[in-house]
């Protein structure tokens, strides 16, 4: 069990703890502190996936978020996750990783035939090929693309993990713990600011972990550790590793993704897997560093080709060699550090430097160590299919476009460096318009829109001295403005190697007659020739080139490809890069899990559940519940093996024959008080309210300003300046806001206060011919006769010792009452009613029976008041006052509201008296007419009339009552039904309304 590419001592991994895992079924091990990538490389494994379009073999390219290739399907802790970045995911015991996008295996992939057919897969291939014939799309093209283009496989299992959201605020948020981030956080913390320092990686320090520098005579790594330890000890500082700030939103709201426990072997049941932080920061320091960009050359996607800094990180952090025969291909000094690190580990690298022979501190050091340096050289094409075996290298002429000499050298890895690109994603997301910095051939932040300041490499400063200085200064100044304290900090002495100038060289030319693929974007398989084609075909805007070629559109957001793509476009177009511009950076910076976005809002926690005080009783008595907004309401009470239809019919029938009780707690209740309350109601409702006496209720209708019915309900005058309003369950919140709007903004002169009391009262309706008898037993000392408590009457009385309100109102159309008691007494009231009701044949009834009762009475509800109907559409014009003004009155005169043929409410019964009419059915003259069949109306509510023992529906129909007596068809293509119906009055039962007054 040896690891052929593991160094003996180097690295920050814990060699005392072995971790076993599998890759494509093969058992392997790594150490605690490894990523999947470092462990695989230590085991000599480089081929990990196949590319998106051509299915070319792919290996690792980077060592962190910049990785474009190594996306794996990973199973751990009992779940399977696709597209996991192997360079970021830490190794945990028992983890099992598999390659994606290959079939049947990564070593033999059928899709690789695409590579040999590459002339058929140019830019815009999908757009061109799959456009026609149209009928091919569903059957042939779409399944083909799905199979060929898939990345990983999303799990269809329920995600059992726990995710959390956290809301936080701070004075200064620092995004990245490299030298500039540490310095900023430290200076701000010393000024007493509330600081959050976020680091994406498990280890703090950024480049300090890998660069050969010293600060105040400490190594970079030790200095970072010292600062972090001190920051952690300060109460005003929060330090978070494995936490990536991925989005910069409005008003300095930043969102951070914390990987809490994926790296832990054991965790408590309540430890979340991941946590999403919403951070409102007064100021933000963007110390996100920079990402090395590659130089483009032939077959530059072959496994074994790496970014040079990643190679150094594998050696210094993980103690892993990516190869033993390295070629280092660079246009700048930073790759010399990688070469020196190889040398230190007894590996002999060859450096190919595109620059002409010159000297600098690093070059001189490499020379003195005897490293083979070849100036004016570069890699033309890599050889090897599943792993690089050799490279054709060339000595460039002075024009750098042709070759003086070409030869082939053996190698097992190529470490490439094309200089550094500041990570400006967050700055750009914040609204900062970037500017092109000629000196570094890259974009850096320019004028800020929000409270953000980029420091260090993210701002284009690539020396440690400058980064620290910027960090300390900005951290100190920004925080001092907030805390009004300034602590002097002496900037430490820095020892670092001086870099010479880089070469503005980004793409290796090809010798005549050679045409290997040269990739710009690895993850989306976009090559130099694809971009050339796009431009030849007339795409000019960089945003269009991006979409046509898919350059930079993969999950890595083009971190290693954007600038090279821009260079290529600007070369062909003969423009400078800033004229070409850059594409838009959007959150998230790296992919985050859906679970994290959802957080705790799943299942029962998706939204609050509102239960009435009688809920437990309903549960115990076999209620089947239905959601009414957030409320749970009994839909019916199941007896034995009853169906919904049978139970609701029984319940409704019992109300018509005896008496039933219904939990109506969920109705919206608004308490209205003040000397101008009557005047206010008079303006809000369409009917007159000035003369309603104390102790009386009235049915009211309210409109929107456009004349459409908004809600209906009863309002009772409790005392001189005190009213109790009820609304429908669904509109309760809207009506309250509506009332507040008029009181606060439109008529502030009215002295009225409104407050929701929905949850303060428990309500029960008692309905049916025997309801008065039952009421008299519930209130033995009260006169409940028709004279003493008439229809729309109101009384307050003790209900077995608890205060209660009695309203004589009816929704069922029967003689009915509604009792309200304080919520705490709700259960007591309900149980007493059940007890007393026994003598009268009382049964509880649910919303389904309630609907049946109101529909056959022709009482309108939500389905009729659907945001399209005015009072006269639903036969409520009797409630519209002609004498006074009210909200929406002026709209009722509109022409379209007054045409005779307007759709209005009617009743429908099936001709066969048997077939139920599906709600939503369209009413048509001729069921066989050619489509589109002219629609005369629609069925809004349907029930089985218990009074007449046949189906009955309400419909909104053209010409309304004029259609009574005529026959039509109600067709429901959805249910595949067509039913012949006859139009009748919408008041099917007791049209004179005698029962409620009896």
């Amino acid at each position: 069990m040896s690891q052929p590419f593991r160094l003996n001592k180097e690295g920050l991994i814990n060699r005392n703890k072995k971790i076993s895992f599998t890759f494509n079924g093969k058992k392997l091990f790594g150490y605690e502190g490894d990523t999947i990538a470092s462990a695989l490389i230590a085991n000599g494994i480089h081929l990990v996936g196949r590319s998106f379009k051509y299915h070319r073999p792919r290996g690792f390219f980077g060592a962190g978020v910049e990785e474009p290739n190594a996306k794996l399907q990973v199973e751990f802790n009992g779940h399977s996750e696709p597209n996991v970045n192997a360079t970021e995911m830490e190794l945990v015991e028992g983890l099992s990783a598999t390659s994606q996008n290959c079939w049947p295996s990564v070593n033999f992939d059928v899709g690789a035939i695409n590579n040999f057919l590459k002339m058929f897969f140019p830019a815009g291939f999908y757009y061109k090929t799959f456009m026609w014939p149209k009928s091919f799309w569903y059957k042939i093209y779409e399944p083909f693309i799905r199979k060929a283009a898939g990345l990983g496989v999303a799990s269809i299992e329920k995600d059992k993990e726990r995710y959390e959201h956290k809301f936080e605020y701070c004075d200064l948020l620092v995004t990245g713990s490299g030298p500039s981030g540490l310095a900023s956080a430290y200076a701000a913390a010393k000024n007493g600011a509330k600081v959050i320092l976020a680091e994406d990686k498990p280890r703090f320090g950024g480049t300090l972990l890998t660069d050969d520098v010293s600060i105040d005579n400490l190594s970079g790594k030790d200095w970072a550790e010292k600062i972090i330890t001190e920051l952690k000890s300060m109460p005003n500082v929060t330090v978070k590793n494995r936490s990536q700030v991925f989005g910069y939103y409005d008003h300095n709201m930043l969102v951070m993704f914390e990987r809490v426990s994926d790296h832990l072997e054991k965790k408590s049941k309540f430890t979340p897997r991941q946590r999403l932080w919403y951070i409102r920061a007064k100021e933000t320091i963007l110390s996100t560093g920079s990402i090395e960009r590659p130089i483009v050359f032939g077959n530059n996607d072959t496994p074994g080709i790496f970014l040079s800094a990643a190679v150094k990180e594998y050696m210094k952090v993980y103690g892993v060699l990516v190869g033993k025969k390295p070629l280092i291909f660079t246009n700048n000094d930073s790759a010399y550090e990688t070469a020196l690190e190889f040398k230190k580990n007894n590996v002999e690298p060859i450096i190919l430097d595109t620059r002409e022979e010159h000297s600098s501190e690093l070059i001189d050091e490499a020379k003195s160590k005897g490293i083979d340096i070849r100036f004016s050289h570069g890699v033309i094409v890599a050889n090897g299919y599943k792993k690089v075996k050799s490279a054709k290298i060339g000595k460039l002429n002075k024009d750098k476009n042709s070759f003086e000499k070409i030869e082939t050298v053996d190698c097992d890895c190529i470490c490439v460096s094309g200089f550094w690109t500041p990570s400006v994603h967050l700055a750009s997301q914040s609204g900062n318009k970037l500017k092109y910095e000629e000196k570094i051939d890259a974009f850096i932040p320019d004028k800020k829109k929000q409270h953000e300041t980029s420091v260090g490499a993210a701002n284009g400063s690539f020396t440690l001295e400058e980064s620290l200085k910027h960090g300390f200064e900005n951290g100190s100044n920004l925080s001092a403005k907030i805390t009004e304290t300034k602590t002097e900090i002496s900037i430490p002495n820095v020892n670092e190697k001086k870099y010479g100038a880089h070469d503005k060289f980004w793409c290796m030319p090809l010798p005549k007659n050679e045409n290997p693929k040269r990739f710009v974007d690895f993850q989306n398989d976009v090559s130099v020739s694809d971009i050339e084609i796009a431009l030849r075909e007339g795409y000019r805007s960089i945003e269009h080139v991006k979409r046509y070629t898919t350059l930079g559109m993969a999950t890595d957001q083009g971190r290693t490809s954007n600038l090279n793509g821009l260079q290529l476009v600007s070369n062909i177009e003969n423009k400078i890069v800033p004229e070409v511009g850059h594409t838009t950076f959007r959150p998230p910076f790296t992919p985050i899990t859906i679970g994290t976005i959802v957080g705790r809002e799943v299942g029962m926690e998706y939204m609050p559940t509102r239960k009435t005080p009688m809920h437990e009783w309903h549960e115990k008595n076999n209620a089947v519940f239905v959601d009414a907004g957030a409320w749970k309401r009994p839909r019916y009470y199941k007896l034995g093996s009853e169906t919904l239809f049978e139970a609701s019919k029984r319940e409704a029938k019992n109300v018509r024959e005896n008496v039933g009780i219904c939990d109506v707690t969920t109705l919206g209740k608004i308490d209205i008080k003040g000397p101008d309350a009557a005047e206010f109601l008079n303006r809000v409702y369409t009917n007159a309210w000035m003369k309603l006496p104390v102790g009386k209720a009235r049915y009211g209708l309210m409109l929107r300003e456009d004349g459409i019915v908004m809600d209906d309900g009863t309002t009772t005058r409790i005392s001189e300046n005190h009213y109790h309003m009820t609304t429908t369950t669904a509109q309760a919140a809207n009506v309250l806001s509506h009332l507040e709007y008029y009181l606060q903004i439109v008529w502030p002169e009215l002295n009225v206060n409104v407050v929701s009391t929905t949850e303060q009262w428990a309500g029960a309706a008692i309905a049916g011919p025997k309801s008065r008898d039952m009421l008299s037993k519930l209130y033995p000392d009260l006169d409940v006769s028709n004279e003493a408590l008439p229809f729309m009457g109101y009384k307050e009385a003790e209900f077995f010792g608890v205060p209660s309100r009695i309203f004589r109102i009816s929704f069922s159309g029967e003689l009915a009452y509604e009792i309200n008691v304080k919520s705490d007494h709700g259960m007591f009231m309900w149980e007493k009613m059940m007890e007393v009701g026994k003598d009268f044949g009382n049964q509880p009834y649910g919303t389904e029976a309630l609907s049946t009762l109101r529909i056959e009475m022709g009482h309108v509800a939500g389905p009729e008041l659907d945001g399209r109907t005015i009072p006269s559409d639903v036969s409520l014009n009797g409630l519209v006052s002609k004498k006074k003004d009210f909200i929406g009155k002026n709209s009722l005169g509109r022409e379209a509201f007054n045409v005779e043929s307007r759709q209005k409410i009617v009743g429908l019964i099936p001709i066969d008296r048997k077939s139920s009419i599906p709600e939503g059915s369209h009413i048509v003259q001729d069921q066989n007419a050619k489509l589109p069949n002219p629609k005369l109306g629609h069925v809004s509510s349907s029930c089985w009339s218990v009074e007449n023992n046949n189906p009955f529906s309400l419909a909104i129909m053209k010409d309304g009552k004029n259609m009574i007596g005529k026959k039509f068809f109600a067709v429901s293509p959805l249910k595949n039904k067509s039913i012949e119906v006859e139009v009748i009055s919408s008041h099917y039962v007791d049209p004179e309304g005698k029962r409620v007054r009896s």
Partner: protein
Amino acid sequence: MLYIKCPYCGLRAQKEFSYGGDATVKRPNINEEVSSEDWDNFVYMRKSPRGKHIELWQHIAGCRQWIKVQRDTATHEIFQTAKVTEEIR
């Protein structure tokens, strides 16, 4: 997510508010004659400016007050907030 300063409660997250439309629209007086054109303008016609806009928001999960917010519709910058009884210019 916007950060809105409720004149009664202070800076609060957008989550606590609900949007209420153009704050410069004035309802015709109740009980007064109004031309059809004026009424239609009040009910239906709204400007959709790019840039500064005075809006109504209600602090629905807070003090329940309706407030005025002067906001840039393109950048979301909030310049000023006020009680509905106060003027924003």
